[in-house]
């Protein structure tokens, strides 16, 4: 027995180090893209790199060379301003060439600052206006189930997006239709455009809220790979047909102490000389 357990633990360790390396490379891409542009949602992108790495390295069924493969799991980024993070993930996942990231937010690029499905391979929806992701996810989950598809629909949203009424319309509907093929993942970075989420519109207690809406909800540290893996796995074990949600507390700027919890972190301005410091700190965070 103990031998089997050790083997399982070893396997988890291998997965974790794969995911960690994926997330680390993502953060480098984010800093490179952010530097080229001079500003952007760099803080959020660093904060959610562990989540996206876990999803793209360990969860999603997709074919990098065939982004429209009909049996793929759908990953809906309703937070279109996080596009920079998803471009980094799509590049590491092989959907985009890493070299293409150099075009980020330049004229004629397939990688605009705010996510557009019509521009970018692997970008399933155009978000940006918040509260659209989950209604779309409900329709896709209904349609895929009707087609007999095994594909899952993931909706990645933010805590600010929980302000939007359409999110809760969709939450009720997902439970009503028993959409066990729908998985929501929320970035709880406690920050939105006008300040701290708690000061703008308090949403807690979130696990209770979602459970009372008929969902299976789990809350984890979104920058802790063990917790992310265990969180997803505990949702997998739910054998009911409830929709599932992983609530992930994250730290804006994670991995770069200079940028972590910086004031005015929502749309972060980074001075020219700071990008190199950020890069060095990112390396340091791995060595330490």
């Amino acid at each position, binding site marked *: 027995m103990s031998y089997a357990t050790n083997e399982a633990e070893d396997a988890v360790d291998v997965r974790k180090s794969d995911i960690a390396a994926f997330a680390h490379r993502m953060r480098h891409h984010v800093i490179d893209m952010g530097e080229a542009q001079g500003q952007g949602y760099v803080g959020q992108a660093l904060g959610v790199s562990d989540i996206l790495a876990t999803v793209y390295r360990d969860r999603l069924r997709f074919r990098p060379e065939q982004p429209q493969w009909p049996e793929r799991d759908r990953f809906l980024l309703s937070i279109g301003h996080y596009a920079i993070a998803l471009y980094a993930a799509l590049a590491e996942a092989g959907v985009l060439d890493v070299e293409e990231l150099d075009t980020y937010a330049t004229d004629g690029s397939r990688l605009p600052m705010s996510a557009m*499905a*019509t521009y970018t391979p692997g970008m*399933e*929806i*155009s978000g*940006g*206006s918040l*509260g*659209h992701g*989950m*209604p*779309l*996810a*409900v*329709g*896709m*989950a*209904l*349609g*895929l189930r*009707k*087609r007999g*598809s095994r594909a899952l629909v993931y909706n990645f949203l933010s805590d600010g997006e929980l302000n939007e*009424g*359409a999110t809760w*319309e*969709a939450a*009720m*509907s997902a439970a*009503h239709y028993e959409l066990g093929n729908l998985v929501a993942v929320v970035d709880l970075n406690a920050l939105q455009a006008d300040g701290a989420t708690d000061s703008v519109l308090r949403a807690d207690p979130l696990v209770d809220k979602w459970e009372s809406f008929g969902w299976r909800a789990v809350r984890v540290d979104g920058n802790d790979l063990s917790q992310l893996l265990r969180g997803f796995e505990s949702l997998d074990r739910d054998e009911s047909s409830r929709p599932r949600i992983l609530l992930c507390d994250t730290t804006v700027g994670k991995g770069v102490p200079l940028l972590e919890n910086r004031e005015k972190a929502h749309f972060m301005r980074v001075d020219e000389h700071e990008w190199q410091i950020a890069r060095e700190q990112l390396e340091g965070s791995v060595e330490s």
Partner: protein
Amino acid sequence: MTKRLTTSAMIASFADADQPTSPAPFGHALARLAGENEEVVGMTADLGKYTDMHVFAEKFPERYYQMGMAEQLLFGAAAGMAEVGYVPFAATYSVFATRRAYDALCLDIAEPGHNVNIVGGLPGLTTGYGPSHQATEDIAILRAMPGLTIVDPCDSVDTEQAVPAMAADPGPTYLRLLRGKVPTVLDEYDYRFELGKAKRLRGGRDAVLVSSGLMTMRALKAAEELSEHGVDVAVVHCPTIKPLDEATLVHEADSDRLLVTLENHSVVGGLAESVASTLVRNNAARGLLPIGLPDEFLEAGALPTLHERYGLSTDRIVRRVLDGMG
């Protein structure tokens, strides 16, 4: 003492007493279409019974999705369905489709160009329920949305033919729904609905009436009455407001006949202004007489009373045209 007319709220009919009607033409057309095309699904936001969607729902319960009283969800979910290859018809009232769920219609449906067909009940002045339910500005709101086709059918014939045409068109469409017992008028004419085409229903030397929606049946009736006054009037039915049939309209306007537009919509931002801007852009500018709803929030009341008060009745049209002839 005469009996006072009542509002009759949501089930008000605009059919004249002597008119032949057809029940729920949209619902029956959708059910027929669904029998031929298995990708067609019907969705609603708690208004299935009031948009004639129930006819489809009874026949194809497994393809019918009740989304609850949630219009943003309705359009988002319809877009999601379209993303995986279905052809949704999503029905609610026009006021909710346009005022409440504009962003979802724009970003989820129109921008990606999905074949989602929005069905809006109670367009213009077709309920006496007051401004909460009277979509007097729905065309004005939607005309500026790129890529959206806007259909304003006249009667049951138009509606039945528009439904398969909307599904066959690859992009999004908004249908101004006439529901319940819908008049049957166009069967008397050599007419076929074609998306994007205006059709001359009758010729006339003195005036040309360009009309859309239920105002076409009023225009046809007015034309008959005007002939008794010695005025010979042409009627051009324009069931697609966008894209507008510019060639036909420029051709019809190219004469010294009195040009009149008739619409079940505010005179701001609807057919009248669509025609006017078309003529200006084609160097065919000329005056026109716009018959439509005034630029104000309308009162509640009985539909015949309101149509008379706000100028949509046949009598009011006849008087306006005679005045316009000078």
